[in-house]
């Protein structure tokens, strides 16, 4: 088990290395002189030269990369071009709202997704199954920003039950954004749970349980449930990365003070140090979550670790 974990941990190192190089090169991929781009269209020659030295753009690329990574390990992500504050500080400020949003969405999408999937599996081929799956495929096809706008229109503007936008730390404010963000994930989990249950139902031990006259309820929850959930765990983990990405859209709809909206703002004002840092953060997060999911999977399913 330990060997598997170490091997799996080592395997992400090259990916992280390449991702960091790509993100580092990001500023260099921009058309034109990066110093000029960073300085903005109205900057004079002196400012551009100052920025060039400041960013170390006058050194060779490998040298620049090493400096960049050295700073990164010390937690220095550079300074935001628009606010002039350290990027790390700006990110620290916006990380909690994004995390709350992702975790709340994940929590309810797991509950609803698994219940829907299991319910459809129990009523295989009947109207309940079809209804549950129609709802699920609709959830996947629903544009998040549209669902967000509709929920906002109904529950916040017309009924006035919930706040329209923003986040000041109250649970009430989390409800609409997390429902919006979680809808497609709930749908994906539901579909996956259904197919996982159907696979498990083919197993001999389920036939045995049914043959010895156990009620369907017991077969379902005691025999099938746990085994059916093993693949669902992986799925759920992978969806967490999706939630982080999806938060870009949902945060913009609900004016959420998190990283996703920050990213869009940075794109429109061309704040490259911030974009670089966010891309790095998101992709590292994503890779590490996938790693943790794989490890969790190995803990649950012994077959994997002995391969």
């Amino acid at each position, binding site marked *: 088990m330990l060997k598997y974990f170490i091997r799996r941990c080592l395997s992400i190192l*090259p*990916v992280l290395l*390449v*991702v960091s190089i*790509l993100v580092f090169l*990001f500023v260099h*991929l*921009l*058309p034109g002189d990066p110093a000029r781009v960073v300085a903005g269209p109205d900057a004079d020659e002196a400012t551009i030269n100052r920025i060039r030295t400041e960013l170390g753009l006058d050194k060779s690329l490998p040298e620049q990369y090493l400096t960049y990574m050295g700073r990164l390990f010390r937690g220095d992500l550079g300074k935001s071009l628009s606010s002039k504050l350290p990027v790390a500080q700006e990110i620290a400020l916006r990380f909690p709202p994004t995390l709350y949003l992702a975790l709340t969405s994940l929590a309810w999408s797991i509950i609803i997704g698994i219940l829907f999937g299991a319910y459809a599996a129990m009523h295989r081929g009947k109207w309940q199954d079809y209804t549950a799956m129609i709802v699920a*495929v*609709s959830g*996947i*096809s*629903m*544009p*998040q*920003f*549209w669902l967000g*706008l*509709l929920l*906002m*229109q109904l529950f916040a*503007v*017309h009924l006035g039950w919930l706040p*329209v936008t923003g986040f000041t730390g109250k649970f009430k404010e989390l409800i609409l954004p997390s429902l919006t963000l979680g809808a497609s994930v709930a749908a994906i989990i539901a579909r996956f749970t259904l197919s996982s249950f159907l696979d498990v139902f083919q197993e001999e031990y389920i036939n045995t349980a049914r043959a010895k006259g156990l009620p369907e309820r017991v077969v379902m929850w005691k025999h099938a449930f746990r085994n059916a959930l093993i693949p669902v765990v992986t799925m759920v983990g992978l969806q967490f*990365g*999706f939630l*982080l*990405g*999806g938060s*870009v*859209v949902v945060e*913009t*709809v609900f004016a959420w003070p998190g990283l996703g909206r920050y*990213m*869009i703002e940075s*794109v*429109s004002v*061309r704040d490259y140090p911030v*974009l670089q840092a966010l*891309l790095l953060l*998101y*992709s590292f997060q*994503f*890779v590490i979550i996938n790693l943790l999911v794989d490890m969790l999977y190995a803990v649950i399913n012994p077959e994997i670790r002995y391969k």
Partner: protein
Amino acid sequence: MAEKTITPSMIFWQKFKKQKSAVVAGIFILLLVFVAIFAPFIAPYDPYATDYSQAMMPPSPQHWAGTDIYGRDILTRIIYGTRISLSVGISSVTIGAIVGVTLGLISGFFGGFLDEIIMRSADVLFAFPGILLAIAVVAILGPGLVNVVAAVAIFSIPTFARIVRSNTLSIKESLYVRAARSMGASNNRIMFVHIMPGTLSSSIVYFTMRIGTSILTASSLSFLGLGAQPPSPEWGAMLAESRDYIGVADHLTVFPGIAIFLTVLAFNIFGDGLRAAFDPKLQ
């Protein structure tokens, strides 16, 4: 009596026809294509013509879906928007598929060093959540629809490559490929004439599903202000314009969203149907 031959395509049709919802979705997609092609003949108004005396009118017999803040007919704009969404969805996935399928074939067929390089690059692309990768590409290239197509195409590549690679690995060892090789067929001929057709069914399923996802991503980017720019009648851009009038004019939000939703839904259901029809396990 002559025996009736059953071809694989007949089996496919038999299985596909049984899935009523997929057939309906397929018809709906054909309808969308028709609307996109003949938009100028179907649409009742000019999509860009403003008429401030008619601004923000709710649905009426003259304007079935109402008018927007500039008095433009929303139904007309949605009809023209079909052109944008379908062409963005189909072109981006086609580019992604061509590159991805080729890379997957090369990766699976030659193996070794090339395989390592291609698959590790795919891993790197997978390290970015799709929409963030698209945002990064747009941040580099600048906002606009063409750049959105590029962005969406890039993040379709790795999955096509993976699907085709795994199919190639198994087909490569089959008897008919070995026979072709023994007859002196070139690598290119074996790859594209003998192996590629065998990988098509899973690629087609993914292709269809991917169009739905791409339309969704492209409209999200337009909604965020990174894709189609006003006054383009792109569905996501229309929804972005509606955002400031929530509670004042609800029809602005409702109709473009329905258009995106039904289109994406149709591609997803159609893709599901294809998958089931191609699946040899389901009879």
